[in-house]
């Protein structure tokens, strides 16, 4: 089954939008239940699109992008599964299987973009120094457009080249396994630069103990599997208690200080 130019353009435009939507916009258009239906509409088989989208959705419910982890990308997965099911009349399972290489490429694309955007933050710093509000706006829109384009191109390749194209694309990445694992290891470490920058400003010498206390508490709670979701909330409770105690003590000391001075003057 081949597709008309209009269909290809529509898929390109739709993927451009949902790729951005996976992190921005409505953050819901990208869900397979929606993409399956729309791809079905574009390719002229709404029924198959709905079934594939619904099935893929049920599969991904347990696989949400929680806490910054990147599963093989469900956006491309959903789109390509619908495309393959409609184009080759495969059942849903098989279509989802064919879509897996594309979902992997989607994940690589996200890793590459998030890595490449890290040094761009220094450019953003320079814009801030000049109070260049337009520059910050532009930076965000450009990053979003790049994400949309990357995904749209990959899906268009899949649409035109079929499942074989997916394997060819992943073969490229498979040839240099150290590149992707190196990048994702580096990506996982880059947040420490962000933390260190915060500490450089916030950490006065008398607060070192507090820093290690926060680290220790989080590490302890991290070993309790049932608390993974509420860990930071619990930690905030403890942190607030410590900070509040300090605040109240110092306020009391301040007013007591004023009081005792008054006492001295009274000659007691």
């Amino acid at each position, binding site marked *: 089954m081949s597709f008309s130019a209009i269909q290809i353009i529509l898929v390109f435009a739709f993927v451009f939008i949902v790729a951005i939507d996976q*992190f*921005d916009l*409505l953050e*819901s258009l990208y*869900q397979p*239940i*929606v993409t399956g*239906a*729309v791809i079905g509409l574009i390719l002229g088989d709404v029924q198959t699109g*709905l079934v594939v*989208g*619904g*099935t893929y959705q049920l599969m991904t*419910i347990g696989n949400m992008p929680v806490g910054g982890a990147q599963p093989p990308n469900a956006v491309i997965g959903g789109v390509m599964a619908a495309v393959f099911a409609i184009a080759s009349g495969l059942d849903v399972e098989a279509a989802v299987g064919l879509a897996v290489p594309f979902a992997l490429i989607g994940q690589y694309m996200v890793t590459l973009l*998030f890595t490449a*955007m*890290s*040094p*761009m*933050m*220094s450019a*953003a*710093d320079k814009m801030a*120094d000049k*109070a260049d*509000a337009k520059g*910050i706006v532009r930076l*965000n829109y450009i*990053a979003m457009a790049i994400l949309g384009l990357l995904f749209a191109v990959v899906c268009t390749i899949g649409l035109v080249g079929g499942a074989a194209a997916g394997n060819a694309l992943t073969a490229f990445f498979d040839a240099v396994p150290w*590149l992707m*694992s*190196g990048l994702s290891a*580096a990506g*996982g470490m*880059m*947040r420490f630069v*962000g933390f260190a*920058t915060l*500490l450089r*400003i*916030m*950490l006065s010498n008398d*607060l070192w103990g507090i*820093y290690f206390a*926060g*680290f220790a508490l989080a590490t302890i709670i*991290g070993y309790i599997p049932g608390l993974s*979701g509420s*860990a*930071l*909330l619990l*930690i*905030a409770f*403890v*942190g607030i208690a410590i*900070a*509040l105690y*300090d*605040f109240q003590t*110092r306020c009391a000391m301040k007013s007591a200080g004023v009081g005792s001075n008054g006492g001295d003057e009274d000659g007691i």
Partner: protein
Amino acid sequence: MASNTYKNLTPAAKLDKKTLNKMVWRSCNLQGSFNYERMQAAGWLYSILPGLEKIHTDKDDLALSMKHNLDFFNTHPFLVTFVMGIVLSMEQQKSDINTIRAVRVAAMGPLGGIGDAIFWFTLVPIAAGICSNMAIQGSFAGPILFLLIFNAVQFGVRFFLMSWSYELGTKAITLLTANAKEFTRAASMLGVFIVGALTSNYGGTTVALTIENGEAPIVVQSILDGVLPKMIPLALTLLLFFLMKKKGWTPVKCIVLLLAIGIVGALIGLF
């Protein structure tokens, strides 16, 4: 070194509803320039810029405010307007910059778990579960209903949190100005405590190195965990802190170092 207080310390006029709403819409693109170093930082700045531009009419003050609002930032995208409201009320009152920074860090952390619980573990499974079955039975109402439910909740939460936390912040700050110095210290304590927690909670770096030892190969990571779990995230953070504070390294230089460690490490089987 950047100044810690704004030049113009006269509190700005309260932000009008239109500006607040504009920022709610912008908050949808919080992750527009997401990256591994500062995560949502530039998207956060983009989201609150309409308010900052209204508040800081002095260009130097706007630059100062933009600069500190580019610090590491990560919170739940659907709950971000809660942090926005509080930070904007503090900016409006021209609070001490370190206080704003500390409150922002303290507020962003806990929201992640709450938001995941509400949206990804509750709303999406229920809404998508019901609607998926409708779609599988061939009903186009499935996807439409899903979008309606999800976005009604999402935007209800976004708009509510923005106006609520902005009012809350404005009230709280008036109360706290009497003890501003003590509050700044307490807020910094909380901020540093949270960054300590994030170092462990967000720090997932481990090594995959094993040393051949016949029947029982030695797994380096489990030895490290025996000494101190999350030792690598802690050591890297402290190393980068040292490089930036004592050696004057820029963030870009640090990123290049980490890229080199990552790729060389992957080549020799460290990761």
